[in-house]
């Protein structure tokens, strides 16, 4: 037994890699459709957008990029589809150089299905460098920061931008980002304006965002791929989020088994060495 435990303790990492890879891959190939139970945070986020009347305007700022796209892009798609199906207009902006292709991707990919019009129902603002400075300026002088869209067309002539000179002229703010974006948004947009704000974040960041949800500063949170799956479930349109949740389940279970095995083996080995010492 001790010999087996020692071998287990010194197991080659590559064996664990193979087990992890298979545990995630198999449910993707053969889904088992485990139950989904949307969290309160996701339901509140969904409800905030669902209750917006057609024609109202949402400002969605993002920093989705290749490194975070697996979690944030499904969120972006879910929110975009929901907004377009409800007739809610969306003004997109980004603070990361990696984001523009994702924004053009989401807007172009769903245009045929929801038959929305660029410039009337949706617009993409150009990338602006500076991170927090950009969000400060959005909160303070929106018109001074953006006068053209990402293609170089003037915003003044676009129907969606009529009557918007200030961030306070939009009805809802959505922030979808991986790191500090939610902090910049709460500091420079939500706090000074009091606008209802939803945050989509990577799962890793969720624990940091929750205090702002508890305090009512954020009306909802979409957390990682699970949050995207919740949103898709609530909207009744399964997508990339939902399809990954079975794989999440099996992957999690393998990790939990590994942690349990590691602890049992450490406990038994320690007891064994104590017995020998006595």
């Amino acid at each position, binding site marked *: 037994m001790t010999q087996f435990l020692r071998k287990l303790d010194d197991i080659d990492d*590559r064996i664990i*890699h193979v087990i*992890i*890879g298979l545990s*995630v*891959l198999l449910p*993707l*190939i053969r889904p088992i459709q485990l139950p989904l139970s949307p969290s309160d945070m996701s339901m509140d986020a969904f409800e905030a957008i669902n209750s917006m009347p057609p024609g109202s305007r949402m400002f969605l700022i993002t920093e989705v990029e290749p490194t975070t*796209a*697996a*979690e944030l892009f499904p969120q972006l798609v879910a929110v975009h589809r929901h907004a377009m199906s409800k007739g809610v207009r969306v003004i997109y902006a980004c603070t990361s*150089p*990696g984001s*523009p292709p994702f924004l053009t991707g989401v807007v172009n990919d769903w245009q045929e299905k929801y038959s929305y019009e660029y410039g009337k129902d949706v617009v993409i603002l*150009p*990338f*602006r*460098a*500076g991170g*927090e*400075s950009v969000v*400060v300026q959005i909160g303070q002088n929106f018109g001074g920061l953006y006068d*053209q869209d990402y293609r*170089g067309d003037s915003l003044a002539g676009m129907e969606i931008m009529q009557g918007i000179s200030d961030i306070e002229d939009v009805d809802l703010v959505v922030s979808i980002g991986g790191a500090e974006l939610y*902090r*910049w948004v*709460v*500091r*420079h947009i*939500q*706090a*000074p304006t009091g606008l209802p704000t939803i945050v989509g974040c*990577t*799962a*890793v960041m*969720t*624990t940091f965002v929750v*205090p*702002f949800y*508890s*305090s*009512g*500063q954020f009306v909802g949170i979409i*957390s*990682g*791929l*699970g949050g995207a799956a919740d949103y898709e479930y609530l909207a009744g349109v399964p997508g*990339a989020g939902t*399809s*990954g949740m079975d*794989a*999440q389940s099996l*992957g*999690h279970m393998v*990790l939990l088994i590994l942690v349990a095995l590691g602890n049992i083996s450490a406990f038994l080995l320690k007891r064994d060495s104590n017995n020998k010492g006595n």
Partner: protein
Amino acid sequence: MISSDFGVWVGAFFTLAIFSYLFKGNIVFEFAEHTFIGFSAAHFFVEGYHNIINMAVRPMQEGQVSWIIPIILGVFLFARYVPSISWLSRFPVAIMVAIVSAAQIRGTLHAEFVSQIAATTELNILELSDLIFLIGVVTVATYFLYLKRLRESRVLSATSRIGRYFLMVAFGASLGTTVMGRYSLLIGRLQFLFGDWIKLIK
């Protein structure tokens, strides 16, 4: 069964090249790694370039000459590579740092200090969850604010120990969400390899 899209094959090659590191470090992985660094640096540069053109050069061409100032200051940033004039790069750095610091002072105090304390004062301590919440906020704040004095006071020491337990719960919750985050990235790549490239996933 397998994609005929050249772009998907290129993506699959680079995906497998990075995954090959799981077996052991190798030249194909390093090739992919250098490609990533090269592309991302140039992409950032390109986006920065368009940013400058749109925000400063275009308005200047339209007659707003004052935009020459940030352009000159921007060029100063590169003075750091010329030792004799490297001090010039301190001006744009000073401006950027000062703006972010000032914005943080005003934004942080409002959104993260006052609003968070205000929300804490609204807790109903007759409810168990709210009482636990209040104890958590106070003990964790004590733990960080009086870190240096913990050994001097028995009360602070006991309070901060409770704070540490709350922190452990928060870090444990972070572990749980981190696991989901990391798996999401793997799922995304496997969906690409076995969905877009080898069409095994429907």
